[in-house]
């Protein structure tokens, strides 16, 4: 398994390099001048020229890239053109918040989506299946921002059970941290639960028809063992794949929910950076997200090998 992980990480390196080149080039192709954004009201050509010189914006593109990537390799993602803070610090502050949100949302999604999917497949064509599908479709159709606002209205404003917004770091006040995060995590999680449920259902439907499930029944095993031990294990590979993709999406795509619940996460950082043409920050964010995605995929591949012995020989 260790050898496998090492091999996968080695293979991932060219991918990361390619992504870094892509990110860097794409940035330069975007319209808008970061120096103008940085200078604000100031339009003095000398100041602008000075800024261009300072941030090496006059160098050839490949030089700019090597300068940037050289820093990245030493853990220096550059300085935000807008706030003058190191990009690594900015990301380091926001990323844990979003990861916590994403993990909580994924847990909620798995605990709702997977059992419902199993039940719905097992009771295919019955009212349980129909109900699960209708609920899932509603989950997919309800926009997050609407559900978020309704939840705040109900749970925080009317019932007063949970704080409507705010944030506390997990390391400082775990209880309050979870309290403030549970609603946004629920909002994100229910949407994903619907997707997970649909995939679990179809994976289970395929597996339940298989010969080895029939064999398990022929042995006299009870249905719980047949479903959870013999069927689910074989259905997990596609479920893990979907969960991985969803987690990646959560890292980058929780902007709206973060805004509604005023959570100081990654999403807001991304949006601000893009609108302000804060190149250094955008590059850093995209690179981090890409690396996180690749890491998630390697973990998923490792999970496949645990779940499916046939993959261990390849």
């Amino acid at each position, binding site marked *: 398994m260790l050898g496998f992980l090492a091999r996968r990480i080695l293979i991932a390196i060219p991918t990361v390099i390619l992504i870094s080149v892509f990110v860097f080039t794409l940035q330069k192709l975007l319209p808008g001048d970061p120096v103008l954004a940085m200078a604000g009201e100031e339009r003095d050509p000398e100041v602008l020229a000075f800024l261009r010189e300072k941030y090496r914006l006059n160098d050839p593109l490949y030089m700019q890239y090597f300068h940037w990537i050289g820093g990245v390799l030493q853990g220096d993602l550059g300085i935000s053109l807008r706030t003058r803070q190191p990009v690594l610090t900015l990301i380091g502050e926001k990323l844990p918040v979003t990861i916590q949100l994403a993990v909580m949302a994924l847990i909620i999604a798995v605990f709702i989506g997977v059992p419902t999917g199993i039940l719905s497949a097992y009771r295919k064509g019955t009212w349980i299946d129909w109900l699960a599908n209708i609920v899932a479709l509603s989950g997919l159709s309800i926009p997050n921002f609407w559900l978020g606002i309704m939840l705040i209205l109900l749970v925080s404003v009317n019932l007063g059970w949970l704080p409507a917004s705010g944030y506390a770091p997990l390391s400082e006040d775990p209880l309050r941290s979870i309290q403030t995060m549970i609603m946004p995590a629920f909002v994100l999680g229910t949407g994903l639960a619907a997707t997970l449920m649909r995939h679990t259902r179809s994976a289970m439907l395929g597996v339940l028809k*298989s*010969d*080895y499930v*029939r*064999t*398990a*029944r*022929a*042995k*006299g*095993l*009870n*249905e719980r*063992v047949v479903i959870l*031990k*013999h069927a689910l*294990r*074989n259905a997990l590979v596609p479920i893990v794949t979907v969960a991985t993709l969803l987690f990646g999406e959560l890292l980058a795509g929780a902007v709206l929910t973060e805004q509604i619940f005023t959570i100081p996460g990654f999403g807001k950082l991304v949006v601000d950076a893009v609108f302000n043409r804060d190149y250094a920050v955008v590059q850093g964010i995209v690179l981090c997200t890409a690396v996180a995605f690749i890491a998630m995929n390697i973990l998923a591949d490792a999970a496949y090998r645990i*779940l*499916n*012995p*046939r993959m261990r*020989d390849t």
Partner: protein
Amino acid sequence: MPEDAPLLQITDLSIRFGAAATNLVDGVSLSLDRGETLCIVGESGCGKSLTALALMGLLPTPPARLMSGTAMFEGRDLLSLSLQELQNVRGDRMAMIFQEPMTSLNPALKVGEQIAEAVRRHKGVSRDAARNRALDMLQKVRIPAPEKRLDEYPHQMSGGMRQRAMIAMAMANDPALLIADEPTTALDVTVQAQVLDLMRQLQDESASAMIMITHDLGVVAEMADKVAVMYAGRIVEAGPVAAVFENPQHPYTIGLMSSMPSLGDRSGKLVTIPGIVPPADAMPEGCRFVSRCPFAQPGCALAPPMREFDRGHAVACWRAPLETGVDAPSPEIAGAA
């Protein structure tokens, strides 16, 4: 339960699928004594596997519907057991081997565990004891290096070895009845003979009765005490294997025998039975073989009952026994019925 009662007595088993108008298994009756081997022969789709799955309670219902029938096994009617009672019987008193060794074992679980879990489920023994039993069984089915194989996954084994593992699993609790659904069809010819040998030997040791489902008359000759020939959902001929082979009475059985290739005289073509099995929605009301039968007569529009004409040898054909040629009922009688 009286001692002389058969181990398994199936009476008038009929199965239908969904809203179909005809039974895919129609009025099947069979009986099997302890230690006996019954082969059910017939072409694909004739209902032989459905019959076996129905006994095991493994038919998906819906779409399958049990229309009629009982299957008395050790004093209980298998067809009216609750799911839990059924779970207690299958894998213990009654076990099944399937056709496809490649897909019938769980790819995600070790072979030893798959055998041991059947033992734990029914014998309530410890994990170690169950594992030892699994090892015993792997030795019994002559899998080389059984200690190593216990911890292997199905994909690490050949088809023949997987089928041996399936047999080990089915026999692990010494069932009184073993149902084998074309256990050698998916295997290489050389491996087929070994697996059949093994099954016969294990059966002798454990005194299990066996229902072997096959379309291969060679397998029947090798294994069976009794044979039942099925055509389009009905049993058309049944009896001791020697009697049926030497003196086949139903035109379908005769066709089946003569369509078997032999090593001897190879001149001429293989004999085939003309026509095809009627589709389920166009099944004739009377004898289902009528459209392909060289001896068909108007009276065949009435379904022929199974009639015993020699010790244990019964046939469902108006023309049987062929030597004496009982007349079929005249069309008027058939019409009146």
